[in-house]
C-alpha cells in the first residue's frame, strides 16, 4: 500500500503522520512537496496539520493555491482518498473539496488537549472499522476549528451522513460543554458527498503509536488501509 503526505511550507505534523504510516503501520509512505505538480498513484494521501503559510489571512487560504493542489483536487475528483487533519481540513474547505469553513474557536484561544468524539457514520473509508456511536479519544490542537456552514448545507450534510464525527463527552453525549470550539452541530469531521475526502480537526496521528496507552487514532488509518485494500 502506497500513501503520500503533502508538505506545505509551515506544515508541522507532517513528520508525525509519516512516523505513524511508515513506522507503525508499515506503509510505503512518500513525501509530496507542495511545489510538485504531478501526483503519483497513491492509495491515499494525507494533508497534515500545522500552520501552512503561517495561517496568514485565513488558515488554508494560501496553501490551497500551492502548485500541488491542482493535482490533489483532480485526484479527489477521480475518487482518490484524501484525509485532511486540522490544517489539512482547513485547506480542504478553502479549496472547496469540502463544504463549510473553520472559524476562530468560540473562546478565542488556541486549545491543545485530549477529548472525545463520537463516530456518526461508519460507512466511509475513514471509519469503516468503527461501530457507529463509538467514542474515540483523540486530541485537538487548534485555534480555528469552529465548523460553520449555512443551514441548507448543514441539512444536506445531516441528510447524507456526511457528518463523520461529533464532539461528545466520555459517555458519547453531545453538549455545549463537550464542544471545545463552538462548532455548528458539534461537528468535528465531515466527508464530501462521494465520501472519498474527509477533514477532521482532531489529530488521530497523535494517538496511534503504541508507546502511549491510547491508540484510538489507529482506527482511522486502519479503516483507510482496509477499505483501500478492498477498493484495489
Amino acid at each position: 500500500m502506497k500513501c503520500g503526505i503533502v508538505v506545505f511550507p509551515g506544515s508541522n505534523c507532517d513528520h508525525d503522520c509519516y512516523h505513524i504510516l511508515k513506522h507503525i503501520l508499515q506503509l510505503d509512505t512518500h513525501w509530496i512537496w507542495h511545489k510538485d505538480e504531478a501526483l503519483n498513484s497513491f492509495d491515499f494521501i494525507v494533508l497534515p496539520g500545522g500552520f501552512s503559510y503561517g495561517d496568514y489571512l485565513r488558515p488554508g487560504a494560501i496553501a490551497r493555491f500551492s502548485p500541488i493542489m491542482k493535482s490533489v483536487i483532480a485526484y479527489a475528483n477521480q475518487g482518490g482518498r484524501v484525509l485532511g487533519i486540522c490544517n489539512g481540513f482547513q485547506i480542504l474547505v478553502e479549496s472547496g473539496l469540502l463544504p463549510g469553513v473553520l472559524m476562530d474557536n468560540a473562546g478565542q484561544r488556541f486549545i491543545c488537549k485530549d477529548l472525545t468524539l463520537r463516530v456518526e457514520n461508519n460507512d466511509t473509508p475513514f471509519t469503516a472499522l468503527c461501530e457507529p456511536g463509538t467514542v474515540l479519544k483523540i486530541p485537538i490542537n487548534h485555534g480555528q476549528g469552529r465548523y460553520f456552514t449555512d443551514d441548507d448545507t448543514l441539512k444536506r450534510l445531516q441528510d447524507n451522513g456526511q457528518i463523520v464525527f461529533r464532539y461528545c463527552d466520555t459517555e458519547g453525549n453531545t453538549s455545549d460543554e463537550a464542544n471545545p470550539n463552538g462548532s455548528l452541530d458539534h461537528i468535528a469531521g465531515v466527508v464530501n458527498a462521494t465520501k472519498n475526502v474527509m477533514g477532521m480537526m482532531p489529530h488521530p496521528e497523535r494517538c496511534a503509536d503504541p508507546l502511549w496507552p491510547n491508540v484510538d487514532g489507529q482506527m482511522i488509518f486502519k479503516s483507510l488501509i482496509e477499505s483501500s485494500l478492498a477498493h484495489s
Partner: protein
Amino acid sequence: MTTLIPITPEIVAEHGLSPDEYARIQELLKRDPNLVELGIFSAMWSEHCSYKSSRPHLKTLPTEGPRVIQGPGENAGVVDIGDGLAAVFKIESHNHPSFIEPYQGAATGVGGIMRDIFTMGARPIASLNSLRFGAPEHEKTCYLLNGVVKGIADYGNCMGVPTVGGDIYFDACYNGNILVNAFCLGLAKADRIFLGSASGVGNALLYVGSKTGRDGIHGASMASAEFDDATEEKRPTVQVGDPFTEKLLLEACLEIMKKDWVVGVQDMGAAGLSSSSFEMAERAGMGMELDLDAVPRREEGMNAYELMLSESQERMLFVVAKGHEPEALDIFRKWDLDVAVIGRVTDDGIFRAKESGVEVVNLPIETVVTGALKCDRPTQKPAYLAEVGTLDLASREVPADCGGALKQLLASPTIASKQFVYEQYDHMVRLNTLVLPGSDAAVLRVPETNKALALSVDCNPRYGYLDPYRGAQIAVAEACRNVVCAGAEPIGVTNCLNFGNPENPEIMWQFQEAVRGLGDLCRFLDIPVVSGNVSLYNETKGEAIYPTPTIAVVGLMEDRSLHCTQGFKQAGQVIGLLGSTLEELGGSEYQKLFWNECRGQPPQLDSQVEFDVHRLCLDLIRQRLILSAHDCSEGGLAVALVESCITGPKALGAAIELNGDPRADALLFGESQSRIVISFAEEALHGIESRAKKAGVPFAVLGLTGGQEFQVKINRKEFINENILTLEDIWKNSLSRYGNRVA
C-alpha cells in the same frame, strides 16, 4: 551621511556609553569613531552583549564534565547523551520587550531561543518558559499574562516545537518588570555541532532569513537600561516576529547543515548584524569585509547605522566555503527565504563595511568584542536583610480552619494548576512527549533510542529575596528534584539570572551570592552549567525585582519505560514521604497569603540530604517500587498531597496522619526542602523502608489513597476534611477564572 556627524558628549551619552568608555574607544582606535562605529561599540559594550558586570562571577561556575561537548560561550550548551546524540539547550530572557509589548516580546523571545538551538545544528524538540508577573490584583497583570502566553503559544505552535512545561509566579516585586525566560532543547548528532566561527580566508558570508527593517534599533541598549516612566511613554520600536519565516529558516538550516561546506553560523540576535559578524570573526581570529548594499532590506533609504544595528527577527549569518555559494543560495531559495552573499572572511582581524562603495566601518574586531571596560562592580550586603531576617512565629496564629486555608492556597495563582496556560500551547507535536505538562517534569523520548529526557525549570524569588545564596541553591535543588521525580538523572543546567541594577552594590551582592549558591550546589551535585543568560536592570523607579536566578535542568533516563508521574494511580495505595519537615514558614506562599509578608529565613537546604533523596528516589523508581513521586514545593506538604490526589487518572481522596512537633501550619504548608511524596502498593513497603534506611533518608508512611475526602489528622486530631472534587475544582480552574476575566 551618518559617518559625517561629529560625535558630541550628548551623542555618546545617548548611546549609553560613559565618558570613560568613550575615552577608551578613542584610545583603542587612536581616533574618534564615526556614528556607525559608535553605534556598534554602544551595542557591543552594552551589558546585554558584553556581560561586563557579570562575567567575573560567571567564571566561577562549574562548566565541565565528561558529558559536556560545549559549555557556555556559544549559542547554546551541548551535552552528550550517548548513542551518538547530544542535547543542545539554553534559556534566555526577553523581559523588557515583554513588558512593553507582551505578545510580540514573548513571541520574539521564543523565536530567539529557538534560533540559538538550531544554529548549533540541532532540531528543537521542546520548549519551556518561566514567567514572573506582578501581584494578581495589579491592574496590568492579567493583560500581561494573557499577552505573554498568547505570544509564546502562537510562535511555538507555528514552529511545531512542543511547549512542554514552565513555571509561573505572581508577586508584587514584578509589578513594573515582568520576567519572560524562554528555554529550548534540541537534539543533534554529537559529531555535527555547528559553531559561530568564521574561519577560512575568502569564505563567503551569507545573509539568510527575513529582510532587515528598522526594528528595535538600539534594542540591545534598551535591554540594558533601567525603566522609568519616560521609557513607556517613548514606546520604543519593538521587534515583531514572523514564526512562519522562522519555520522555513529552521528547515532550510537543518537541510544545509548536512553539507560539509558549511563553516560556521550564528543567529542575529541582540545587536543584529554587528554582534553576529564581530563575534564570529573574533572566535576564529579573522577579519571581515561586508558590502552593506547587498543586505536585503524591507524599506528604502536605510543607512549603514540602521543596517548594522537593526534587530529584525528571523535572520542568520552563515559562513560557507568559497565556491559553494550557488548551492547554498539554491537551498535557501527552495525554502523561499531572502538570501544574499554580503561579504567575505579576511585574515587581518579588521572589520570593514562599505556603503555605496564608501568605507563606513573600519574597526579592529578583538577590540570591539573583548575590549569593554571590565567592571569590577562593588558589592554590599543589602540593608533590608537585617530588617526582614527574623520571623517570630509565636505572635502569628495557626488558622482555626486549616481546610479553608488549604482552599485559599490552592486558589492562589502561583499554586493553582497552570492548565489554563499549557492548554494554549501545542505540547504534543513531534510525538515525543511521554509526560505532558502537569507533572513535576515533562518527559520526552529520544527518537530512535530507548532513552528519554526530563525537563524542569524553577526559581522561587522569595527565597532569593531573603537569602540569594540559598535561593539559588534551592532553585537548582528543586529543578533537579523535579527531574528526579520523573525518573531521570540530572545531566546539565542552564540558567537565566534576572536581577536589578548592577550599579547598585546591594544588587551586585545579591548577584554574587546567587551565582555562588548556584555554583556551589552544581559542584556538589556534579552537574555542569553549560549555558545561560543574564538580565540586569530589572527595576523601575529604583524598585528592583527579587533576585530571580531561574534554573532549568535536563535529566536523562536510559530506559524511558521507567518514567514516573506525580499523580496517585488508584485507591488503596500507601502514601509516603521521603525527607523531613521542619518548622519553616519564612518566604512561603502561606506566609504571603495569610500574613502578607515575606520575612524570616528561607527553608534550609542540606546539599548532602538533597543528594541522598535524589539517589533514593531514582533507586525506588528504577526498582519499580513506587507508583508516583511528587516534589513538595510552594504550599508545602498539604498542597503536594492534594496535587497528587488530583493529577492521577482520576481524582482520589486520601486519609493522612501526620505526627511531629512543628506547629500545624508548618507541617501542612511549610516549604521544607528535599521532600518527595510517593505512593506505592503495600507489598513494596518493606523494600522501600530498607532502602531508605540504607540511604540514610528519613521516610514515613502518611496514609492511604481512596474515598472522596481529603482528610488530614495531626497527632490524631483532625485538621482538614474536604471533598476532593471541591479541591480539584478550585485548583484546576482558579487560573482560568482569573485569566478569562476582563479588565
